[in-house]
């Protein structure tokens, strides 16, 4: 920056600085696009994680066990209403 006035230095910095920032980000954007295309071809697709626990929660309580529970609750707390019995 020798031989330039401070104002000329500042102007030059503006042009070089903004130019460099734009060039780098354009390069990052374009090359990342290329990278993603290559990865899409080379790397296998991500498998969505299987939902665990969902099946277990839905598992039904055997009918005879459910009847026993309902009977027990009726004896301990007459008038109480059982809405749902599930396995923990």
């Amino acid at each position, binding site marked *: 920056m020798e031989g330039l006035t401070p104002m000329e230095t500042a102007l030059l910095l503006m042009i070089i600085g903004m130019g460099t920032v734009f060039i780098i980000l354009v390069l*990052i954007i374009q090359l990342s696009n290329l990278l993603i295309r290559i990865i899409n071809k080379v790397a296998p697709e991500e498998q969505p994680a299987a939902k665990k626990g969902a099946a277990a929660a839905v598992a039904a309580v055997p009918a005879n066990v459910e009847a026993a529970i309902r009977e027990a609750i009726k004896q301990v707390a007459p008038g109480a209403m059982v809405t749902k019995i599930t396995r923990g």
Partner: protein
Amino acid sequence: MDFSTIFEKLYEMTAFSNIAAEPTFLIMYALGFLFLYLGIAKHYEPLLLIPIAMGILLANFPGGEMGVYGATDLLINGVNYHNAITLDNGNLANSFLATLKDGTQAYIYGDPVTKVPFDVYHCSLPQIAHDLGLMNMIYYWLIKTGFIPPVIFMGVGAMTDFGPMLRNLKLAIFGAAAQVGIFSVILVAVGSGAFTPQEAGALGIIGGADGPTAIYTTIKLAPHLLGPIAIAAYSYMALVPVIIPLVVKLCCTKKELEINMKEQDKLYPNSIQIKNLRVAKIIFPIFVTVLVAIIVPSAVSLIGMLMFGNLIKEIGADTSRIADTASNALMNIATIFLGLSVGATMTVQSFLNWQTIGIVAGGFCAFAVSIAGGIFLVKLFNLFSKKKINPLVGACGLSAVPMASRVANDIATKVNPKNNILNYCMSANISGVIGSAVAAGVLIAFLR
């Protein structure tokens, strides 16, 4: 020894005598208390403002030896000495009285026999700690060497998710437009004649809205302005929720703010979809580091560390231990030392001058112009493109992750509660971090 002599000695022992002799200290205390209030009660960047505020208080109690002395070139008896230190008083054994270039007399840190100032960069750390106090040792060891900002950048990298940027790559270009504030303010600051190009560079980088970048650039270009520039940078970052809405109000119409990015995506979908985001996220930091290292090597200390931090985060379980240290323990340690020592550079001599007012005003302009720069590039895009972009995305090109995105999203959802643009904003926001670090690299390469 009579009573009056005892009281006189007591008075001299306490800080009262110095404060009475130089009441400007009181302004620094007021500033310290103000930042403590803002940090504690208003929650403005408390992790940094509170250490900085305590640093200011510690540095300005005379006799505490906690203030940081800046190193400058001094002309004594016609000889130019590098990195010499001017002391407040002659209490130190390693000091002598010298006449400076402007005819004033001052105590200089150096050999009292030969009357040669010490070059502080050549002094050992134990000597600095012994003669100038602990805070100077921390400053010359951790801050002046430029060690701390890259460490913080590594932690920031380990906390950043480049996923939103990879999903909306095109929007990343607004991170470049929002650096225009940096260079415009440099132009004005140099034009005003109050700042040298180096000082203007350090002032302009406030517009990058990135604390570690601003501090790193200032250390390299104009270390004597470190205190006010760090304060301005972090204060304005804390004020992002005020500044962005202000600029958006001045630059955008309601119709523009209503642009729904998700609907635009449905109308004009992206040409490529990422099938394996995990692999893309691991390769991305390596590739950006190599690219930046080739084009702007001076930005590598920041970008390289940012990307290293991100890489160890994205790899996952294999490196989770070091990623955890980088983003938690190490970053917190770095933040403590950075805050305290930056605060300690704000002594009366270095802070109470016209340049500080210039920095406060210039910093605000840099912020505002950067936001406007991003907004206007979006407007330019919208003129030529069928797929419209919400100008709030451009406003986020100004780093300040993730606060800028949150603020922009708040504005968008206020106009239309269904218009959630956070992910799109994050793309420009994260690329703004890369943009400001690259801008810093250019400034350091050309002005240093």
